[in-house]
């Protein structure tokens, strides 16, 4: 099931999606605290030059995270 779910890491610049939940529990509380709440809208802004880390917008502010962390956040599409 886990690998079927699409994650923030697979989004492309400019795309928006709704957060479904977390693929692993690891770091989920940190991500929650930073505002990655199930049901909220995440927008993929841009990637760093080597493709990693990435910059996303969530509830009106910008956060950078690595692809590894982005892959933990599943999205609805």
């Amino acid at each position, binding site marked *: 099931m886990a690998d079927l779910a699409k994650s923030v890491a697979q989004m492309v610049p400019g795309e928006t999606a709704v957060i479904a939940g977390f693929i692993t*529990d*690891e*770091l*989920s*509380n*940190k*991500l*929650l*605290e*930073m*505002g990655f*709440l*199930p049901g909220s809208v995440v927008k993929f*802004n*841009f990637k*760093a*030059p*080597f*493709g*990693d*880390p990435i*910059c996303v917008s969530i*509830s*009106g*502010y*910008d*956060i*950078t*995270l*690595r692809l*590894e*962390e982005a892959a933990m956040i599943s999205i609805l599409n």
Partner: protein
Amino acid sequence: MKRLKVALAGKPNSGKSSLFNQLTGLNQKTGNFPGVTVDKKTGIIRLDENIQAEIIDLPGIYSLYPRSLDEKIVAEIFSDRRNNYFPNKVILVADATNLQSSLLLLTQLIDLRLPTVLVLNMVDLAAKSGQNIDVIKLSQHLDLPVVLVNARTGQGIQELKKVLAGNIPVSRQKIYTLEKEITPAVDETKQHFKLESNYEAYQYLQQVENLSFLREEDKVFIGSLAAQYEFFPGKYQGAETIIRYQYIQDLLSKVVLKTADTEWKRFSYRIDKVLTHKVWGYLIFFSILFLIFQSIFAWAQAPMDFIDSTFANLSNLLRDVFPEGPFFDLITQGIIPGIGGILIFVPQIAILFAFIAVLEETGYMSRVVFLMDKIMRKFGMSGKSVVPLISGWACAIPAIMATRTIENWKDRLITIFVTPLMSCSARLPVYAILVALIIPDDKLLGFFNFQGIALMGLYLLGFLAAIVSAMVMKWIVKSNERSYLIMELPTYRMPKWSNVGLTILSKTRTFVFEAGKIILAVSIVLWVLASYGPAQQMNQAENAIDARINNNEVAADQRESLLMAYRLEHSYAGIIGKAIEPVIAPLGYDWKIGIALITSFAAREVFVGTMATIYSVGNTEDQTTIKSRLKAEINPDTGGPRFTTATGLSLLVFYTFAMQCMSTLAVVKRETNGWKWPMIQLAYMTALAYVSAFIVYQLFS
């Protein structure tokens, strides 16, 4: 007069430090929280005629559950009423453009039953983004005072002081209801430790390992309770965060009138397009590095020369004024040059931190982390290691302290380990004299100065050594802890210059006191070693020199400086220098250089002064004199010059790699909680320096 303790809390980038600066101005003190190595900033201000407040600036955090060293202290202070810094009142600074994540911590403070005032900062920006906040309704819902502040201009500060001086009742809101399964354990904990709130007791259960004020028996008590109720730290944390955010979103839907408008962010995105571009981004970053580099050298030179000559003059002046005697010698030759040796680095450190502060203030530093993270990870570090490594060019001490923002222990350890390989400002005087000695002052293609290229090469060499060592460390050090990067990218804005000024002041102060006390102590010890020796030989100094003058071997006007050289040779430092000669001979050094290597442990630049003394130059002020004297020195074994290209290069390489700095070792010991890592670092860097210098000397001789 009554004195309150007021804690200043909030998330990173909420304008917390600006508000702290507005409240306290120049009236601030920096130090460490007791027992932990977290920067503590406090300032005492007057609220009204009868009440003073000690403002305590806490590290920026999103929630009470800590992840880095910095963050632990906040949970510790808020859940220990006996803590010296436990506040009477709390200011929670919230970024009005991003209320949601700013309020998470507030909901925890309310559950801890702490009297809190909510400060809304950046309301002007929030208005620009189309958000209209109903402050009265917000205050009613939260049941606590809300003050609007512009931390950049200082608007609202008087109002905040008035609110702080008045009575702030504890909010009657209850936001998070504990899970049923854990309430009996919470009740028992609350009773056992006589706590005020359930949530405080809950923190004891959640953070038993983080709260250092808990004694062993307390931990055992909590541990058995946790086992009884099948609880473990971290359980329910995710659920708690979601419940808190539900409350916040519900609240915000009632008090914030929002029109979708992201116009104000467009500008920031446009800048990001350039600054994080795959070509322009790096080009701009490296140009900024080059600019920093250039200015450290160009702008710092004049004030450094001034400090140097002032202390030399002061020392000479006092030598004339004071009577003779070991005590006065200690002052004029040990303590005053020791203090001068500390202050001489202040200009370079101040300039470097001016740049770093401006880059942080504008929001650019977060982009550097973003740009460099992938590259730095290849070398076992993180994007956040860039600032410490750059700071290492000025001084390893503030640089190592700057690693505290790195959450992952392994990333942080590697950064601490390799930072001293970055060529710090104390190496520059050593480089300068040796490069001038062995590299011709010619130009390549009539344009590039050879000496300049050599100097650049040495900085590059140090940097490469740091990178390669980090890569090796990455394979050796094992860690189960996950490395991650989850960080806010703040919107670009103009720096606030008073914040920049205060950062420079506090960083410089940290250096002067942290490194200063050790440099001073070591220079006094070394002064004793270099001034005293076995009485028999020391007492013969005058006779020996006079005999040589009488035999016309040396000129009479050199008596004073020859005497100094003679005493140094027969001092304890000289004896040690001679003792290590067999060890350093393969590197091309004699016992005279050996003495200089030893005295360099106070600070590397002492090398120059020691060389001047041992070669009886007398006046240590004049670089050209030292240079020509060193050039004329003959190696008795070969009959040729002592400072051949091989010896010079070998010394340069040695100084680039060797860990000759007690203050750095002391700081590493403190930051890594023990002697293990500083000792490994000392052994590694010494071995690296020795082997490299050996290879260089053998290749070139």
